[in-house]
């Protein structure tokens, strides 16, 4: 089964896919922005500031999703010694970090009109900042460790330690008294968000997911070419 994850097999797909993903991303983003900035209604309490949700929430979801995927890939890669899983994980990290920064900055911008402050050391915000630090450590570890085996080991440890923080981020608003509001969207129970706001939110999430896929594909191709460059040196 793992032969399907061979770089040469994947490269033939990943080298052609970005142009289509880019096109799809631009279309989805255009629809999402129109919905989020013009067509969606304002909130009865937060007025127009609620529109920040359409960039803040998808960014937070994607950064959590990417880190969870990275952890899964690193653990499976380490157990079954699948080098390519580390490559995929490494290629996912930059967009994960950028989405984390976007979630923090847009959250801060949203905090000013809603809470009256740019920043508060509350459980949700602090745990999100910690996730950003894990992303940073992960990327730095790849730069520091020349020896690939050490890099695989250290980055796997970082993701395992970091994943402990993911349920803390998710449930922080339920476990502690925080400034941050509880989740409005629940998969298992009824969501408290109206469909007129849910639709643009989902469109923007799709656009953000496509962007992270685009960056992943470009980064993955770069990493493969880097390996091939080293291979040419050895010829």
């Amino acid at each position, binding site marked *: 089964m793992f032969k399907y994850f061979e770089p040469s097999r994947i490269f033939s797909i990943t080298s052609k896919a970005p142009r289509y993903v880019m096109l799809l991303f631009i279309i989805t983003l255009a629809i999402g922005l129109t919905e989020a900035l013009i067509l969606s209604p304002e909130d009865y309490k937060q*007025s*127009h500031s609620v529109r*920040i949700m359409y*960039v803040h929430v998808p960014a937070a979801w994607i950064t959590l999703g990417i880190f969870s995927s990275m952890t899964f890939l690193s653990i499976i890669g380490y157990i079954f010694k699948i080098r390519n899983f580390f490559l995929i994980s490494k290629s996912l990290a930059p967009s994960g970090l950028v989405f984390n920064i976007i979630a923090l900055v847009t959250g801060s911008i949203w905090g000013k009109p809603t809470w009256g402050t740019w920043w508060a050391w509350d459980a949700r915000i602090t745990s999100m900042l910690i996730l950003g630090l894990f992303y940073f450590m992960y990327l730095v570890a790849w730069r520091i460790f020349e020896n690939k085996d050490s890099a695989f080991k250290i980055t796997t440890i970082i993701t395992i330690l970091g994943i402990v923080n993911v349920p803390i981020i998710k449930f922080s608003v339920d476990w502690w008294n925080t400034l941050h509001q509880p989740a409005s969207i629940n998969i298992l129970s009824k969501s408290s968000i109206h469909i007129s706001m849910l639709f643009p939110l989902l469109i923007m999430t799709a656009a953000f997911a496509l962007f992270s896929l685009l960056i992943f594909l470009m980064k993955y191709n*770069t990493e493969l070419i880097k390996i091939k460059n080293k291979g*040419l040196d050895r010829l």
Partner: protein
Amino acid sequence: MIKEILFMNGFGLYVWSAFAFTILSFALLYVVTKTQYIKEKNKFISKFGTLNPERATSAKSQSINKEILSNTSSI
């Protein structure tokens, strides 16, 4: 209408700056990633050019190398 979209009952500055920051971050990440990709690809092509015919044939026999060389404008 346009005025309402721009000012958003006094929240325009917050909303637009949040969206602008997001789009700028996207653009920056895209440019950085693309630059790295082009740099590595050019390095690969120039290295490939310095190989003697025998080594070049051997390197070209690998499907991934062929893909890299054929895909000069994939992104």
